[in-house]
């Protein structure tokens, strides 16, 4: 119940921000096209935030995600441009590299008992260095055409609407069957909103689809699989988890491997979007990802939280950036406004929880 409540207070905060944004931008914010823009712009941070949730739940952290994104982008572009790999093979190799980096992190964290902060600080620095060395500091472009098209490919609007309706309907059905009325209302509203946006767009861009799948999988894994439940267990009480016969080292290693894979996926989306491998990309991306997770209500101490919140957190950050551009606020003031709003959002959330 408490978890659920939190999900809604932060969703309400997002909703309130959306309404305010619409008002102060004279409606420009809420235009379907802009909402779709926003969705696309959230994808990279959103994917990272999903993975980061799985990490922070264990009380860990991954500082390396931004640099890994850059490295992956550089590698995929280099493979295509210099070594003439096909889009698919270069993508697969890059994903494997991401998983490998995760394995490296997990290995040192579990086998040498090093703090995740240090291990991932190490991979953050190393990955950035590799990205710069491989690219000699320049962007690698152009990438394969197919690869660049991935980010712009769209599922036709009508198909997307039908799919959304089906999925939304199924969830709604479950909610009603389980008598989760609040969930039901939320599902209905979100589904209708998405359908409205889709009906007014050319289609649903592939990055958004990927993000939706990643988020859904994240939610599913945490809620429904042993792996997900063990992550909560580990974050809540390492000792008890170990005594329950769970191989906690394996658990953590997998966790970091998944994060590595998601960082690679985010890096691929970014590279495809930019149609280039950029060694300086993803600078401080880890901070945004962690912030999304924390805004979404996951505790840095581990053991409590959920992917849903992190996704909303990512949207809050994305919305802020989007609106500030629409308003064309001067960069220097943007910092100030952002600082206040991030604090304010979490504060509202906390106050509501207290009352609720």
């Amino acid at each position, binding site marked *: 119940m*408490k978890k659920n409540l939190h999900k809604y207070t932060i969703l309400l905060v997002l909703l309130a921000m959306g309404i305010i944004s619409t008002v102060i931008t004279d409606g420009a914010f809420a235009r379907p096209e802009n909402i779709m823009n926003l969705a696309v712009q959230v994808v990279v941070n959103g994917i990272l935030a999903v993975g980061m949730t799985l990490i922070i739940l264990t009380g860990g952290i991954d500082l390396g995600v931004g640099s890994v994104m850059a490295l992956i982008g550089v590698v995929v572009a280099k493979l295509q441009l210099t070594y003439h790999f096909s889009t698919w093979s270069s993508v697969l190799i890059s994903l494997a590299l991401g998983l490998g980096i995760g394995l490296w992190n997990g290995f040192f964290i579990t086998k040498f008992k090093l703090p995740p902060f240090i291990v991932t600080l190490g991979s953050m620095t190393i990955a950035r260095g590799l990205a710069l060395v491989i690219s000699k500091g320049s962007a690698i472009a152009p990438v394969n055409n197919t690869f660049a098209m991935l980010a712009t490919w769209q599922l036709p609007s009508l198909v997307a609407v039908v799919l959304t309706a089906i999925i939304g309907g199924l969830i709604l059905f479950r909610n009603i069957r389980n008598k989760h009325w609040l969930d039901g209302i939320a599902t209905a509203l979100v589904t209708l909103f998405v359908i409205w946006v889709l009906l007014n767009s050319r289609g649903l861009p592939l990055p958004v689809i990927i993000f939706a799948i990643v988020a859904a999988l994240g939610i599913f894994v945490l809620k*429904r*699989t*042993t*792996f997900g*439940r*063990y992550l*909560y*267990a580990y*974050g*809540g*009480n390492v*000792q*008890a*988890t*170990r*005594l*329950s*016969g*769970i191989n906690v080292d394996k658990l953590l290693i997998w966790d970091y491997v998944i994060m590595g894979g998601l960082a690679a996926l985010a890096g691929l989306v970014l590279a495809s979007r930019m149609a280039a491998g950029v060694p300086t990309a993803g600078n401080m991306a880890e901070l945004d990802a962690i912030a999304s997770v924390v805004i979404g209500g996951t505790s840095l101490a581990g*053991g*409590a939280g959920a992917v849903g919140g992190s996704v909303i957190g990512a949207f809050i950050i994305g919305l802020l950036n989007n609106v500030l551009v629409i308003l064309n606020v001067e960069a220097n003031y943007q910092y100030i406004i952002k600082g206040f709003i991030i604090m304010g959002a979490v504060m509202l959330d906390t106050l509501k929880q207290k009352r609720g």
Partner: protein
Amino acid sequence: MKKILEMRQIEKSFGKVKVLKGVNLTAYRGEVLALMGENGAGKSTLMKILSGVYPYGSYSGELVINGQICQFNSTRDAVKAGVSIIHQELNLIPGLSVMENIFLGREPKTAPGLIDWQQMRQLTVELLERVGITLEPEELVGNLSIGQQQLIEIAKALSFSAEIIIMDEPTSALTDSEVEQLFNLIRLLKSQDKAIIYISHKMDEIDVIADRVEVLRDGESVGGGMKADLSRDKIISLMVGRDLTDLYPRRENKPGEVILEIESLTVPGVLETLSLQVRKGEVLGIAGLMGSGRTELALALFGIYGKRLTGEIRLNGKKLTIQNPRQALDNGIALVTEDRKVSGLVLGMSVGENLTLSCLEQLSNALGIINQERERTVIKNYIQELRIKTAGEDLAVANLSGGNQQKVVLAKMLATQPRILILDEPTRGVDVGAKAEIYQIINRLAANGVGIIMISSELPEIIGMSDRVAVMADGSLAGILEKEEVTQEKIMALATGGRRNEKESA
């Protein structure tokens, strides 16, 4: 009876300290073996070896189950060999539900990695029923009381359908009726030819449930035998290595004038218009069922509820404002909390640092610089006075045995030189020897004029120690019994107050 377990010449050290020095232990099917010993004797350590927590190679000696030598690398191996354990410390995960905790690591699955919630729920319902608690399987463990959590641990241990079931102080947070329920379960297990190894510091329980007793002292087997052949005194003297005559020593002093007056104390939703008086040198016992609000009363007097607290508290006639623990302590009201690990001690800090945590300001100058000489003196004094068994004041308090940890919490509060001392379950998990010592300390304090409020779930302790007994029910005072009139029956009558059903459904 058939021998199921034999532990031979078990030795185990932590660093340079040898805590088990060649222990032998045998258990038979269909019996309850009580493993007895003072705090720190090595009972839990021995059981952790048996249950695979300390893997093969981290100890020496032999472990034979059903005639086969076992070398466990993990708790998983032990479970496979038919050993399950209820640990002394709760090993639950607050963020997971009851059923998830019970089946952690061995969830029923529909496909690899996918939990079969339906079946898990079903199995949980059955198990909870066996243990005799009504709880939603989906309830988060973090929302449960300690007693309920302990019942979950018991349910979990039973779910392994093990042959050897170890219970390491399983009842430390249970009510009498819950204990009774547990004993019925134990009898059932016995009849199914399982072996139960039972650890407890409550002699009453041993009397009721044990078939055989083995006693450890300082990591060595010092004897034992069939319960029927052993008197209580004999067991105690085996444990402590001397005769213990009087558990509840008489107090010479008579209570003096009233020092603490509580009038219409109310915390909305927690405590209801509660009025009480405590006299100088008096031990006021507080009894009641679990959840009756005794701990809340203690916390209220200690300022935990801040501004939510209304009513009047007067000390020596002076009205007090107590909105936080500091104010309470400044006014001479001290509280020894119920759960030493959660709210009493900073486990990572040393014995000494814990001991002076509440009186540090008195040991430092205006700038907050600690006078090390004085601090050391205070620490030494209390370690000596309360006979805290520790390798040194710099030892992390986590390494002390339960009873000695309890003494550290007590010492911490005594060091503030209180006029009113509130004790919430002061002897939970404490061995008889240490119990007697704590009682003596309580008496000494009373003799010095300290007013003492002692909350306890052990009626013999309440009756043995109190000058008066206040009984609570449902967050308010159900009645007060004078020393002469106190009996277990009267306390229970007040505590249940005819509202037994209501209570249990709550």
